[in-house]
């Protein structure tokens, strides 16, 4: 009986809500972006192909970059020391260029759990983790993580005993942060590729833990 479910009339056949078409015209800044981009191309500063390739390169950065860093941190003591000493230099030697940004790697321990937020905007180590998830940029995550981090963690499925200290890091200036989660138990002898597959994006933001080994 298709008409029994009036509440579902606004859902598409796949069960998702319809999203309004964007018929409102461009915002000021969208118009500005198009104007500047077209001028750069007209004046021969950049080509459309160069811009498309740069966008592709930005989209291709994924949390796999950060996972490779964490797996090496777990397996290579010399690299681990270098990473804690100067994060930018250590990851640059692995081919991850952070540009002008500095990197602070935050090691979790059995007694300390780190998590990262940017209350002022949405600073994020994109070269290591790719584009930030929408929730990272939401006002709720930004406001609540500094106010009630344990409740936020619990909503992500991470419930910590009070004997584990939570360290929240508000990324307010020129540093970028990556959490170094604890190495899962049962991974003795694993190689870096096997280990990297356990490292989730959220475990490097601090809202999650690495996958555990069955």
């Amino acid at each position: 009986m298709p008409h029994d479910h009036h509440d579902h009339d606004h859902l598409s056949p796949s069960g998702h809500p319809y999203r309004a078409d964007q018929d409102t015209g461009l915002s000021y800044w969208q118009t500005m972006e198009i104007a500047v981009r077209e001028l750069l191309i007209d004046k021969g500063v950049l080509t459309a192909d160069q811009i498309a390739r740069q966008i592709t390169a930005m989209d291709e950065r994924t949390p796999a970059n950060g996972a490779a860093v964490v797996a090496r941190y777990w397996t290579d003591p010399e690299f681990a020391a270098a990473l804690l000493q100067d994060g930018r230099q250590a990851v640059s030697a692995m081919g991850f260029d952070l540009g002008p940004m500095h990197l602070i790697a935050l090691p979790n321990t059995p007694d300390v759990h780190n998590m990262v937020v940017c209350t002022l905007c949405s600073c994020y180590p994109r070269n290591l983790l790719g584009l930030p998830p929408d929730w990272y940029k939401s006002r709720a995550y930004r406001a609540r993580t500094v106010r009630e981090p344990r409740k936020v963690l619990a909503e992500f499925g991470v419930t910590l005993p009070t004997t584990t200290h939570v360290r929240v890091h508000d990324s307010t200036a020129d540093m970028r942060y990556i959490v170094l989660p604890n190495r899962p138990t049962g991974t003795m002898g694993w190689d870096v590729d096997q280990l990297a597959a356990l490292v989730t994006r959220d475990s490097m933001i601090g809202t999650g833990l690495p996958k555990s080994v069955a």
Partner: protein
Amino acid sequence: MPTQLLAEPGTKVRVRNWTPPGHVRTPAYLRGAIGTIERVLGLFPNPEDLAYRHPGQSLSLYRVRFALSDLWPDATPGDTLDAEIYAHWLESADAP
């Protein structure tokens, strides 16, 4: 030109309780709070200048660690919050 606090790790500092207009990178929830220098990050151009295309004054940038329970009374003891604060926003915790 703002005066700059010079501090080392372990120094107790207070975040200035200013409410200036403009582009400011010291979160309001930390203003007036007392914390401890966790590490000294080096010299960085003041973003409050850069935002208006002025040359940024070179300022020491510090990571300051606060007890979460000093910010919010119901926080779990032992939990902390670290933030990056520029030198001109900090004063000695002993200052009146």
